[in-house]
């Protein structure tokens, strides 16, 4: 069974962390992953940086620009991850934009992911219908789970369609926004979280965008299976040595 599906069966709220590969320094990737696992994180999204990250706010944009300046490329990332499964067992997901993957070759990319032990992909600008028509078979061939996004504006009908083509979890974008920390979630978000929970989807939902602390994590996971922290973590490692990663997680999971 795919590590993501296994993890989703655990009886707990999951913490998933996003970081941009190649940031703050080119070769921090594996240290960040190992330290995150040590600190109790359930799942990791490794950001493959892109020059024009349309769905991202200033923090992840800046980290992507810096990572590319540092020399991060698809090949460099794969090389860094080559031996990661010797020491890390939690699910690893690559999150990125579609163009770098298209240029690498979708099949070659998926194959490499499987060899390394990547469990899934999140590609915000690969539309659901294009995925289903052109790439679903390839992803399945290499045992990769593709994760789709939904937002407060996504209709119930479309959510059910997305649910029907998903086989891991649904990435629930917390509000209509690019990535980045929010001050907190209001009634509108809570209603949305509840509305989705009431749909009783086949795939569990994990909430992302705007989760930065214990409060927002708890709000997000009241109805959902877990939450993803991105910008807040990227900001944290900008300022703190990688050894301090263990101090970050308690700010999210313990009150």
């Amino acid at each position: 069974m795919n590590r993501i599906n296994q993890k989703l069966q655990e009886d707990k709220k999951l913490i998933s962390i996003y970081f941009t590969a190649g940031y703050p320094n080119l070769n921090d990737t594996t240290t960040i992953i190992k330290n995150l696992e040590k600190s109790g994180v359930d799942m990791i999204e490794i950001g493959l940086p892109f020059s024009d990250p349309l769905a991202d706010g200033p923090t992840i944009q800046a980290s992507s620009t810096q990572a590319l300046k540092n020399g991060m490329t698809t090949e460099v990332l794969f090389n860094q991850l080559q031996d990661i499964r010797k020491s890390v067992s939690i699910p690893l997901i690559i999150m990125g934009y579609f163009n770098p993957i298209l240029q690498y070759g979708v099949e070659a990319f998926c194959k490499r992911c499987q060899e390394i032990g990547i469990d899934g992909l999140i590609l915000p600008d690969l539309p659901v219908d294009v995925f289903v028509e052109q790439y679903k078979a390839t992803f399945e061939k290499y045992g990769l789970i593709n994760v789709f996004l939904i937002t407060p504006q996504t209709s119930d009908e479309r959510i059910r369609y997305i649910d029907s083509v998903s086989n891991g979890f649904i990435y629930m974008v917390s509000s209509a926004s690019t990535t980045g920390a929010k001050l907190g979630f209001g009634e509108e978000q809570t209603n949305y979280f509840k509305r989705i929970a009431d749909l009783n989807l086949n795939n569990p939902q994990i909430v992302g965008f705007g989760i930065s602390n214990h409060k927002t994590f708890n709000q997000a996971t009241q109805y959902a299976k877990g939450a993803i922290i991105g910008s807040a973590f990227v900001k944290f490692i900008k300022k703190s040595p990688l050894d301090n990663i263990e101090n970050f997680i308690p700010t999210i999971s313990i009150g």
Partner: protein
Amino acid sequence: MSYNINEKGYYGEFGGAFIPEMLYPNVEELRQNYLKVMVEPSFQKQFNQLLKDYVGRPSPLYFANRLSKKYQTKIYLKREDLNHTGAHKINNTIGQILMAKRLGKTRIIAETGAGQHGVATATVCALMGLECIVYMGEIDIARQAPNVARMKMLGARVVPATSGSKTLKDATNEAIRDWINNPENTHYIIGSAIGPHPYPDMVTRFQSVISEEITWQLKEKENREYPDYVVACIGGGSNAAGTYYHFLDNKGVGIIAIEAAGKGIDSGKSAATSALGKAGIIHGCKTLLMQTNDGQITEPYSISAGLDYPGVGPLHAHLYKTGRGEFYSATDDDAMQAGLELTQLEGIIPAIETAHALAVFKHKTFKPDDIVVISLSGRGDKDLQNYIDYFNL
């Protein structure tokens, strides 16, 4: 071979809507409605009325006598520079603001390079009383100062894009991010034949008034239905798409596209996408774009802010790929010389974008009885300082 968009939003292999889910409801709403709305008699009536009384259409098709003598062929200039606000861009913004109104939107966003699209958007927002926010690269804000002042006077908020190359590509990124953050009340008026489906087709249709007019104007002047060649500069490709539209399926009409070569195609400072680009995804559509082997979008360069874009619209990628279009590029120097030449032979100061199209004669010799229609996409008032600095006037 078809040069029209198919029902899935592709021109051949190019096009589509590669957008994050956050944009799906907006783009889908537009996709479902744009054709329906465009054929409504009340829409048509209002659109045509505004084009006539407000924009000043039809724009003249002017026989350029001295230029024709010099290049030994028959040159007509399609005078989009005489439109209200000084370029073809207003054809599209009139259409899109009416579309936005029909869809109940109250807030308008746009990106701009040369500032012509920004001005055209700010203008129609003033006309309709809608809030207007224009994203513009920091570098373009500096090199197109007169247009920034116009937008401000028209009541628009001009927001600098400070990432990447600080030009049109980055302004477009910021506009898209704004749209993600404002999914309900906002319409994004894209200024060129780019972006996710249905934008390339919608913009092309609004701009197609250009080739529609050329058809009957040529009939009047030459008793011919179509020219031998149509020529246009290509940034994203909206003036070109509008100039080609009614001739796409007529093999008797040669289609010529001129891109910006900047300092030269191989100089590393260029925006000649067909020569330097590969298929990929930019701003929600599959098309030709300039990128690294690794799929990172590269920063283009052109003296002309409106052509300083690392992609072309999917229609143009298709015209290039199928060989239907002849693609050339003009360097900064070629364009500036061609701009000065038009000024001194015909008394028309063109926009620097447009001047690239006029550099076609460096690349191609036409026959004496060929009829060559060039899209004079905009006037050069906004570029005076650049011309003055370049020629030490």
